[in-house]
C-alpha cells in the first residue's frame, strides 16, 4: 500500500509501542531556547539524569533578548537571569548554543532551516508551538512542553500518538499581491482554528509546489494556529536546492546520498489520506485578521462578519472579539487605524519577507502616528538584508531597524504594545494580550500589508500601493 511521508517518518523513528499503546518516538533533532528550558534542566539535575544524545540538541536565545541594546547584563533582570541560566545549562550539559557572538543567533525556527540543521525525514521537537515551521522541508516537527523537553533531553524520545493526516491542497495560482501568509490565513479561516485538532496537515497542490522554501516555512509555521500540531510539505527540487551548501547540511558525495534518502520519504502518489481539503488559490485576497484568534479574518476589501450569522456556540467568542477590538459587525477592515507596525517573527522574519516589505517601504513614509519596527528573524537575515541595503530603505522611510529576536510577536522583551494600541503585525497570533499589553489589539497580515498599513496609517490594500 502506498505510504505517506508521515507513515514513513513515523515508522523509522518508532523505538517501540509503549504499554499504554502510544508510540515511543525517537526525536532526531531537538532545538531549545531560553524560555521553556530552565525548569527542564532543573528536573534533569534533580533526577540525576544526563543528556542522552548531546549531539542532537542545539540552542539559541530568542524570546527575551532586547532588539536594541544587547549589552550584558540586560536591563531587564529577569531576562538577564534567563540568559544566565541558558548559558550555564548549555555549558554544564555540553550542548552547543548559537548566541550573539556566533553570528548564527536568531529565532529558533528561522535558524534551524537557515543553518541546514532542519532536514527532510527528521523528527524535530522544540519547546515552542511554532516548531511546525520546520515541516516545510519535509520533516515531522512539533512543539512540546517543558516536562517533555526533559524527556527528550533524558531519553531522546517522546510518548506520542500518531495523528490522522489531512492533505490540504491549494489549487490554481495566486494573484499579484497575495503571499504565503495570505494562503495560510485563508486555510485557517476555512478549516477553522480547531479544524486540525487530531490531524497533521500535508500541504500540497500547485500553489504549494511553486512556493519557495521561505514561503513554505511561513505556511507550515501557522499549522498550529489551525489546530494541527504539525504540517509538512513533501521534499522536492526546491527543498534540495535550499539545503545545498548550508552549514549543517551534508556536503559533497554525502549530499547526493542524502538526496536519495530524502526522495524516499516523500508521500507516494497513490497514498490515501484521512481527509482532503481543497482551497482555490486564485480566490485568495490579501487577508487581515479582525478578531482574537487567527481564524477570524477577512479579505482586505471585505467587511467584518456578524456574530448572529455564526453557529450558536461560536457567537459569544465573536462578540467578545468585536468588543475587545473596538470593531462593529459589518464595518470594512480597510481603513482601520493602526498605531504600531511590526515586521518580523518566525512566521515572516526571513530575507524574502524583508525584501517585499522594503519594496512597499520605497513607496512612502511611515505615517506620523505610527511606530514601525523591522525585526530580522536572525543575525544572518539581518546581515544579508544589510548587504542589500534594505536597512537603509527602511530607515529612510521611518521604520526602526532592530536586532534579531522574537520581539513584538509576544512582547517578552521591551518591544510591547502600550494600552489599547492597534498593531499591524506579520506575526502569528492575535490573542488578547499577545503583543505585551493586556488590552492591546493585533491585526495579522503579510509583511507587504504591514508595510502598506505603516505608510497609510491604517489598513490598506497593498495592491493599490504596488500598482
Amino acid at each position: 500500500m502506498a505510504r505517506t511521508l508521515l507513515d514513513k517518518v513515523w515508522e523509522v523513528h518508532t523505538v517501540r509501542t509503549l504499554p499504554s499503546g502510544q508510540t515511543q518516538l525517537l526525536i532526531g533533532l531537538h532545538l531549545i531556547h531560553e524560555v521553556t528550558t530552565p525548569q527542564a534542566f532543573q528536573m534533569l539535575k534533580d533526577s540525576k539524569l544526563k543528556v542522552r544524545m548531546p549531539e542532537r540538541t542545539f540552542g539559541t536565545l530568542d524570546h527575551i533578548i532586547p532588539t536594541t541594546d544587547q549589552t550584558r547584563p540586560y536591563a531587564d533582570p529577569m531576562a538577564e537571569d534567563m540568559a544566565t541560566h541558558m548559558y550555564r545549562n548549555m555549558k554544564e550539559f555540553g550542548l552547543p548554543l548559537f548566541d550573539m557572538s556566533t553570528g548564527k543567533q536568531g529565532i529558533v525556527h528561522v535558524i534551524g532551516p537557515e543553518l541546514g540543521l532542519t532536514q527532510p525525514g527528521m523528527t524535530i521537537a522544540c519547546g515552542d508551538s511554532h516548531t511546525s515551521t520546520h515541516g516545510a522541508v519535509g520533516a515531522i516537527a512539533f512543539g512540546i512542553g517543558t516536562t517533555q523537553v526533559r524527556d527528550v533531553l533524558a531519553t531522546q524520545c517522546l510518548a506520542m500518538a500518531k495523528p490522522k493526516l489531512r492533505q490540504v491542497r491549494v489549487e490554481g495560482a495566486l494573484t499579484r499581491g497575495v503571499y504565503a501568509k495570505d494562503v495560510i490565513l485563508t486555510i485557517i479561516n476555512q478549516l477553522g482554528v480547531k479544524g486540525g485538532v487530531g490531524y497533521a496537515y500535508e500541504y500540497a497542490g500547485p500553489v504549494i509546489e511553486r512556493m519557495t522554501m521561505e514561503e513554505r516555512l511561513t505556511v507550515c509555521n501557522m499549522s498550529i494556529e489551525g489546530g494541527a500540531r504539525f504540517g509538512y510539505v513533501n521534499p522536492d527540487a526546491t527543498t534540495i536546492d535550499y539545503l545545498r551548501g548550508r552549514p549543517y547540511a551534508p556536503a559533497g558525495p554525502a549530499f547526493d546520498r542524502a538526496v536519495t534518502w530524502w526522495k524516499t520519504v516523500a508521500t507516494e502518489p497513490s497514498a490515501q489520506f484521512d481527509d482532503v481539503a481543497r482551497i482555490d488559490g486564485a480566490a485568495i485576497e490579501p487577508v487581515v485578521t479582525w478578531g482574537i484568534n487567527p481564524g477570524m479574518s477577512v479579505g482586505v476589501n471585505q467587511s467584518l462578519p456578524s456574530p448572529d450569522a455564526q453557529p450558536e456556540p461560536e457567537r459569544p467568542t465573536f462578540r467578545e472579539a468585536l468588543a475587545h477590538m473596538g470593531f462593529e459587525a459589518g464595518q470594512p477592515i480597510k481603513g482601520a487605524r493602526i498605531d504600531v507596525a511590526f515586521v518580523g517573527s518566525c512566521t515572516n522574519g526571513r530575507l524574502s519577507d524583508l525584501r517585499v516589505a522594503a519594496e512597499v517601504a520605497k513607496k512612502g513614509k511611515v505615517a506620523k502616528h505610527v511606530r514601525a519596527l523591522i525585526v530580522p528573524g536572525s543575525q544572518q537575515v539581518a546581515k544579508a538584508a544589510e548587504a542589500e541595503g534594505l536597512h537603509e530603505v527602511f530607515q529612510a522611510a521611518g521604520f526602526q531597524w532592530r536586532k534579531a529576536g522574537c520581539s513584538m510577536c509576544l512582547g517578552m522583551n521591551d518591544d510591547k504594545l502600550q494600552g489599547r494600541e492597534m498593531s499591524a503585525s506579520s506575526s502569528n497570533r492575535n490573542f488578547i494580550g499577545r503583543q505585551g499589553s493586556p488590552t492591546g489589539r493585533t491585526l495579522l497580515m503579510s509583511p507587504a500589508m504591514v508595510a502598506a498599513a505603516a505608510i497609510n496609517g491604517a489598513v490598506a490594500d497593498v495592491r493599490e500601493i504596488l500598482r
Partner: protein
Amino acid sequence: MTTTDSKRRQIAGRGIPVTGNDIDTDRIIPARFLKAVTFEGMGEHAFEDARKQNPEHPFNQPAYQGASVLVVGQNFGCGSSREHAPQALMRWGIRAIVGGSYGEIFFGNCLILGIPCLVTTQADLEWLQKAVERAPQQQVTVDVEKQEVRFGDRTIKATIPDGPRNQLVGGTWDSTAVLLEAGAAIESTAKRLPYIVGY
C-alpha cells in the same frame, strides 16, 4: 510521589466553569510570567489579565475557591506550547478538566503532569457548566477509568483516548522512567537513521 499516588483513576472535587471557546494559553498565563526560571508561584497568575479585566471571572469568585475540576468549552488551551499554562492551573488547584476539545500541546502538557482532560458533547458540557454554576459546593467526579463524569444524580459520558487513559489510570503519565526502559533500543533506532549515522 509513590506509584499508588500516581494513578489517576478518578478525581473528585468541586467544579469551576470557564465558558467560551478558543481560550488560548496566552490568556491562561500571559507571556510576562514566563520569564521566571521556575514554575513556583505560577498558580496565583492563572488568568491574571482576564481576572483583572473582569471582576466576575470565575477564578475571582469566592464560591469557586478550592475547586479542582475545571469545566471549559471548545479548543481550550490552544496556541502557545507553554507548560506554564497547565502548571498555573495545577498550582491554583485544578486536578482534572472537562471540555469539548483541547489544543493538542496543552493536552499533552496536562497529561505529563497527570491532569486528565476529558471530552464531552456540547450539550452535556452546557449542562455541566450550568449545573456547577448552580451548585458550586457540590462535588464533581471525573472517572477517567470509566470515562464518565458524575454530578448529583446524573452521569455523562466523557472520553479520553486509550493511550493517555492507560497512562493516567496506570500511573505512568510521568513518562521519563517508561521511556528509559527501552534501553538500547533507543540507540539502535538512532542507528537506522542516515542523518544520525551519516549519509
